[in-house]
């Protein structure tokens, strides 16, 4: 009886996992759907990003594109790329980023791509070594941690594997990689703070909700606020980490409300935390958004956040552009055709959205 019961349970679990896998393949299908729209957004972005100087190189790249395409068509050989990324479940940003990469680096575009995911540096380094042994042509890397990459990148160089960094930089000699395509978190923060300054509030009493301490996004976005607050005489009444977590942000704002201090700005370093903060305001009956008492600032342009902006419940959302694949694609095409990359560090163009000017089109295009 006992054995039968155990067998039944194990069978149940197997069923559950099969169902789970079914869900997984569904996910793959929908994500490729999403990817097509993402891709469109990315090309829009790239187009928007091109200033005059870049336009010239872009044209060259486009020309090279054609040449490279001919090459691959002639030889029929795919470019082998190994992509090391963080776990796509980490955030909406990462999900969009992963879907964008998957859509660009596919066989139809002349790539043979392998993916490895981890939030741990050591596991990523192991994956990189594996890719080098497999003889990939390019290694694309979004490092979990900034340090510890020197020796593996030297291995890559020795084996003729070219490295391109995306999303995050590392502490290694720039000669070890071809290019680095990153978001400037500090610029994102500055853009948001400039917007805040332009609001000309009578006084600034700010609740500052930080991300995971020490992460690039937290440092850049926090520094932008604290430095301007010091120079402008703004009052930051609390500065606390909620670890990118909505419920922690809710508790922090709740504790400020409980203490009876007044505030009129919430600067949350991502959308989830802004969402948690707003939940606390709603529970206490404090108005927020365009016609409200408290200004809400978030980051990352999640779709739900942009919809809140559109509805006037929040005031500002800063973009953190996850669509690097078109930039990477251009660089690879340039290198394949024998060209050189002129700028090692490419900073992506990023936008900020104001609740008073945002349109439904923005929500559809930039929401991730």
């Amino acid at each position, binding site marked *: 009886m006992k054995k039968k019961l155990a067998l039944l*349970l194990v069978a149940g679990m197997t069923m559950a996992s099969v169902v789970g896998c079914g869900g*997984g393949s*569904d996910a793959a299908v929908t994500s490729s759907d999403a990817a097509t729209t993402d891709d469109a957004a990315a090309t829009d972005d790239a187009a928007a990003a091109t200033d005059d100087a870049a336009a010239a190189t872009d044209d060259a790249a486009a020309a090279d594109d054609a040449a490279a395409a001919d090459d691959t068509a002639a030889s029929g050989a795919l470019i082998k790329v190994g992509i090391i990324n963080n776990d796509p479940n980490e955030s909406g940003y990462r999900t969009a980023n992963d879907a964008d990469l998957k859509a660009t680096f596919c066989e139809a575009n002349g790539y043979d791509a392998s993916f490895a995911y981890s939030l741990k540096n050591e596991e990523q380094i192991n994956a990189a070594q594996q890719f080098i042994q497999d003889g990939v042509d390019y290694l694309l890397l979004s490092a979990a941690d900034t340090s510890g990459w020197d020796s593996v990148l030297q291995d890559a160089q020795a084996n003729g594997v070219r490295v391109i960094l995306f999303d995050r930089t590392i502490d290694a000699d720039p000669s070890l990689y071809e290019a680095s395509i990153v978001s400037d978190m500090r610029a994102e923060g500055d853009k948001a703070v400039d917007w805040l300054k332009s609001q000309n509030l009578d006084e600034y009493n700010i609740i500052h909700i930080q991300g995971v301490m020490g992460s690039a996004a937290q440092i850049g976005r926090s520094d932008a606020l604290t430095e301007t607050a010091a120079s402008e005489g703004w009052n930051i009444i609390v500065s606390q980490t909620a670890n990118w977590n909505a*419920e922690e942000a*809710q508790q922090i704002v709740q504790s400020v409300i409980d*203490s009876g201090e007044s505030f009129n700005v919430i600067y949350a370093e991502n959308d989830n935390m802004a969402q*948690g903060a707003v939940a606390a305001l709603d529970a206490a009956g404090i108005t927020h958004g365009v016609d409200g008492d408290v200004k809400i600032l978030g980051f990352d342009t999640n779709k739900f956040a942009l919809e809140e902006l559109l509805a006037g419940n929040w005031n500002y959302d800063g973009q953190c552009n996850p669509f690097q694949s078109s930039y990477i694609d251009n660089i690879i095409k340039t290198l394949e055709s024998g060209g050189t990359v002129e700028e090692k560090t490419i900073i992506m163009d990023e936008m900020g959205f104001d609740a008073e000017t945002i349109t439904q089109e923005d929500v559809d295009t930039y929401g991730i």
Partner: protein
Amino acid sequence: MQNKSKSGIGAFFGRLVRQQYFIPLTALVLLALFNLIADPAFFKISITTNSAGNRVLAGTPITILDYGSELAILAIGMTLVTAASKGQDISVGAAVAIAGSFILRMLCGGDSSSSTLHMPIICAFLLGCVVAMLFGAFNGILVAFFKIQPMIATLILYTAGRSIAAWFNNNELPIIKDATFSYIGGFIPGVPIPTPFFIAVICVVVITLVLKFTNLRLYTEAVGINENSARLNGLNPAAIKILSFVILGLCVAVVGLIKVSRVSSINYSVIAKDIEMDAILAVALGGNSLSGGKFNMATSIMGAYIIQFLTQTLYKYKVPSEALPAYKAVVVILLVVMSAPTVREYLSNLVKKAKVKEAA
């Protein structure tokens, strides 16, 4: 005469130190005293109107009851698991993500920003319970039949759980716009006390009744104290262990429902992050042995609210983010060292010696 009354007090303190209530009560009193002296406004409770137009109670004590309730519910299940299996379940946070994600999936029916509910909340919740209990049973089977240490066995779900949670919703972030759904993590119209506290009270009453009217306590403790003699006395240790994990699964589903209701959404990677550690700490704070056997449910639940009390105190005094874990660690070290059996033995010996001296 005077001597006698003193020794009476000494005996009283001696008994008190040996009581399991001693550590959590001391911690509670110390925290309360500290806050009372530093700023009595900490305990102020006022009535405000929330954005839905309800008049509700507000203030730090209410916040503690509100947010501590999730931990208290988890502490119930964790106490049973600890007592029966001589180990802890570290997959609780991941399991909360699974349960929460599943409930959202059922409610929004695959449409990531649906404005209508696809089934009654209670149905989604019951299905969520079944899923969470299945995962609990999975942990339980690994522990009971395969004799894997609980921490190692639950490491599997700890690692995989958040990805499984993301699967349920195709890695999207569903948002529920229905107002009734937010009542669970907020306030029911017309009721000024946060709903999570009511849910915790219901859970506590249910588990108290179960422990009083069934043999659950006896069997669990018997298995935890000596598995072999329990078996020789006709108990089935494997079944008892699995049962404890399934009950924890039920607690997890309740917490998952509250968590996703608070913000009407979910973030797979951070929802209920590190909550397993707080739940284990609540059990330890309650003076329960982490190596199984006899347990006290009431002190575990007190432990949970004390942890929230501590968190809220640290927020209140605006401890800088970088230093927050360090402060918490210091307090935790003090509490855990105080609750260690050797230290308590030493303390009660001190009291005894003082008594002997007085008598002499």
